[in-house]
């Protein structure tokens, strides 16, 4: 494990920028989101979770698939440099890894070249994901329900812990190791550092509420598709879609043309199963016409259908949906209700 003094962070980030396009949390109005950073001063590390999620980095809310004019179709050029992300939390990193399974490998069918999403793959290729330990998790955090925690290194290329005077950095992947080994200011940690890290981790974990055992959640959901429980769960939902918008794992999108017949662009835009128009057909027929069906779809996709296809929940417990919901729906309460429901 390596360390460098906190004051050397700008230098470390500049070092990363030699090879990478650097993304990090930054102010966006009153909120924070991941942005391409040109100088250290733009970074805002005051919040634990960014308001908007990091899927934007590899799956922008509006993305040009191609432009067209009288000369034909042109795809956007691939990025010049690979992406490095500073300031991710483990929940964010794990969500990016999940989306990668979807976009580069639908339903775990790696042999199907035509199912690969080149727009995701071009940006994701050779990326460096640096996640940071959460020293003081929020009351909305529930990553520990998913075998994770504030000091979980899973999925990171580099895992960072902020100490009192040092950043401690652990190379998890080979790529991460190499990057750290090449930074002149990085030193090896000693026993005193290890003790500080251990204390920080114990403190962080004590902030977390106890984890809920959700091992029965999938099998429970398999049995309650047409249970009246959904009326109770979904009654409050106003289908605003905010939860899906800020969710780091929601990835549904729309494809739409912008422009005229002779010149324009085909774009994809984030969309959500919360909206009535998501499934509405031109004939007027709508397979998911009422709000309850849509709430059920979102819960089922995350905690049941995705498990069928990818053997994991499509949720990392980041808690953004809990903080953003305008009618105070709390996904944790929904899960508890489902688990407690007698069939």
């Amino acid at each position, binding site marked *: 494990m390596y360390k460098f003094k906190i004051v050397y962070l700008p230098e470390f980030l500049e070092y990363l920028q030699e090879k990478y396009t650097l993304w990090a949390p930054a102010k966006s109005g009153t909120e924070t989101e991941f942005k391409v950073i040109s100088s250290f001063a733009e970074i805002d590390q005051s919040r634990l979770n960014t308001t908007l999620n990091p899927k934007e980095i590899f799956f922008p809310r509006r993305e040009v*698939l*191609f432009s*067209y004019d009288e000369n034909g*179709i042109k*795809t956007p050029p691939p990025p010049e440099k690979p992406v490095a992300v500073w300031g991710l939390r483990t929940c964010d990193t794990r969500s990016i890894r999940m989306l990668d399974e*979807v*976009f580069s490998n*639908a*339903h775990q069918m790696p042999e199907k*070249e*035509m*199912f*690969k*999403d*080149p*727009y995701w*793959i*071009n940006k994701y290729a050779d990326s460096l994901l640096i996640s940071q330990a959460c020293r003081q998790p929020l009351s909305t955090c529930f990553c520990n329900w998913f075998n994770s925690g504030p000091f979980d290194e899973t999925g990171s290329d580099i895992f960072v812990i902020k100490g009192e005077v040092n950043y401690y950095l652990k190379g998890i992947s080979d790529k991460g190791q190499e990057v750290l080994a090449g930074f002149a200011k990085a030193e090896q940690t000693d026993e005193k550092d290890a003790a500080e890290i251990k204390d920080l981790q114990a403190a962080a974990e004590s902030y977390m509420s106890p984890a809920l055992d959700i091992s029965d959640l999938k099998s429970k959901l398999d049995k309650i*598709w*047409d249970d009246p429980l959904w009326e109770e769960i979904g009654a409050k939902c106003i289908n605003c879609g905010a939860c899906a918008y800020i969710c780091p794992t929601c*990835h*549904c*999108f*729309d*494809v*739409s*043309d912008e*422009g*005229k*017949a*002779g*010149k*324009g662009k*085909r774009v*994809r835009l984030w*969309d959500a*199963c919360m909206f009535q128009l*998501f*499934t*509405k*057909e*031109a*004939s007027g*027929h709508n*397979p*998911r016409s009422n709000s309850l069906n849509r709430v059920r*779809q979102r819960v*089922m*996709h995350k905690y*049941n*259908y*995705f498990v*069928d*296809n990818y053997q994991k929940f499509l949720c990392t417990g980041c808690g953004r949906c809990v903080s953003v919901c305008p009618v105070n729906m709390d996904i944790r309460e929904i899960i508890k209700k489902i688990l407690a429901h007698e069939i």
Partner: protein
Amino acid sequence: MCNTYLPFPMKVERIITENPDRTLRTFDLSFINEEDREKFIYMPGQFCEFSILGKGESPFGIASSPTEEGILKFTVSRTGSVTREIHYLQEGDIVGIRGPLGNWYPEQLMQNEDVVIIGGGFAFTTLRSMIVYMLAHRERYGKITVIYGARTPEYFIFKEELETWDARDDITLHLTIDKPYPGWEKLVGFVPTVTGEVNLDPKALVLVCGPPVMIKYTLPVLTKIGFKDEKIFTSLERRMKCGIGKCGRCGIGSKYICIDGPVFSLAELNKIPEAF
């Protein structure tokens, strides 16, 4: 890297207006690039995303058969904004096509079996593809029986072809309309009713495609006759956008219609919530 989001160009060769109120049109498209033609290997039951740049994209089942080389056929009902623009196309215009997408009718299982095909309205497109394919390889299959229903005689699509098939002795055609109509001498009655009345042999394999309400009422009739769920196949539709299992619009349970379907056996559908 393969990019399935990019359409390739095709030329509108022929437009046929299928019904008197001009809401149904069939478009024969030809490949412009030889390379696209060679790559386009498909089977009856698959679909394409059909687009006009600047106007948008919609999914349609392929109505032509792979045995009809060099062309692709789509029948489009004028319903929303994209289909309206498709109806404005003229012969010679260029359109964008992505595909072939999805799975296909279980042709291998159909070999050496009797086959029953049940269709309704303008959803007859991929069934037409299957029938043309079977007639081109007639020796592979047992008895072929077709039940096809439309509102009135004018609403059948591929009318000339239906007449040719009717004249053949290696395919049995039961055409039916909803209500009596002057001059109509064939069957009258809804598809589910007719299905129960034409003495189908439950050993056959069945393909059903039509409006949801037709499928809903036909399936129990088939079960009552004695068809096994594993031998009944139907094709589902949703508002598919990407066609490669990403955009999430065609999810039914843990399946995506665009990559796991559109063709499913009733045995599979019984396990999927939200299928109908």
